[in-house]
């Protein structure tokens, strides 16, 4: 069932539709929450909180295309609130990204697969070294694939600002990758 068909059922409070909705978006919500918090448990709790909020506002779920942006906006706000509350808490060690994201290489050749895995890990590390704003732009645009308009609405800034910020963020990330020898 595609999203356009699913959402009316979810709005009506159908439990099976709600389960399908959760299964469809949980990876996105958890992935974004993990990038914001950097902790698996925190990200899991936040993702659960996001779905509870969505469930309390079933009637507000927008139609198909806007749904992902809407739910990621709720996720982002929940993460920002969480980070504000937990500002003083020291960072914890956590699972490596490779165990969390499905970064397995489809390459059958072990050497190529290893190279690709190390490249993925380098990108993930470089992402963690970006400034907060640049990382947020990359999270929303290049990772979650939201449009400039959606990002501008989430961050409450003009579209032009998002566009110029996006270029700068990508360049900052690329420079960090070049610094670790990933520039070709």
């Amino acid at each position, binding site marked *: 069932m595609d999203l356009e068909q699913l959402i009316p059922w979810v709005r009506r409070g159908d439990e099976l539709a*709600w389960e399908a909705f959760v299964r469809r978006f949980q990876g996105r919500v*958890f992935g974004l929450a993990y990038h914001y918090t950097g902790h698996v448990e925190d990200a*899991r709790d936040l993702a659960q909180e996001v779905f*509870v909020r969505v469930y309390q506002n079933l009637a507000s779920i927008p139609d198909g295309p806007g749904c992902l942006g809407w739910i990621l906006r709720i996720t982002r706000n929940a993460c920002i609130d969480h980070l504000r509350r937990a500002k003083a808490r020291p960072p914890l060690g956590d699972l490596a990204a490779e165990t*969390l994201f499905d970064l397995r290489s489809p390459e059958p050749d072990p050497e190529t697969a290893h190279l690709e895995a190390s490249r993925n890990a380098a990108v993930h590390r470089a992402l963690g070294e970006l400034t907060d704003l640049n990382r947020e732009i990359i999270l929303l645009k*290049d990772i979650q694939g939201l449009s400039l308009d959606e990002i501008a609405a989430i961050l409450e800034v003009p579209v032009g600002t998002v566009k110029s910020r996006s270029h700068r963020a990508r*360049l900052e990330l690329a420079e960090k990758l070049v610094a670790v020898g990933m520039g*070709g």
Partner: protein
Amino acid sequence: MEDRFKRPADADLTEAILARTSGSPCARMRELACDFADGALDAERRMLAQAHLDHCPGCAALVAALGASAAVLPRFAEADPGPWFTQQVLRATVWAPRPASRARAWWGKLMRRPRIALEAAYLGTLAGFAGFSLPPASLAKAWRVPAAVQPLAASARNLLHAEQRTAQAVAGIFVSPQGRPPGVVQRFLAKLRAWLGGGEPAEAPPRPSHQTHD
């Protein structure tokens, strides 16, 4: 155009000439790097950028890194929250109570405020003071009651009068100020004393009267 830019050139000479004329073109290349990596440049601009990249290892590395990150980043969009996550969400939502109406939610929120008991006690005390300290006549003078609530105001006035009369009656029972005849309680106690003492009960004092005796 393509042939001209593909001709081998003395890199040092080119740099020297650019340094004395337009300056380094790398800043311009940085502006176009994202669009180049995304394939969003028009054909001529793309050709010019490619010619620069052929001679500038720094910009070429930057563009390569942009391409690599563009290929990897979408893989970070989804993560597996674990096998029990969906069940936990369903438990927290489907079993959770249905959302209350906005007015009920507001009222519930108001009632859950920690200071609500203090505020209610304060308002109650204030209302009590206002009700007992001001005579009904002054209340009526102080506020001009709108016609729509006249019946309600009249009921409130009657209630206040009744309360005052009750208070006077109770004062008459329990209090016997000097110069005024004793109340019912005093007469009952006098009879009881006389009975317990075995003597004749004292002559019952006259009933309290509001008439003044000269």
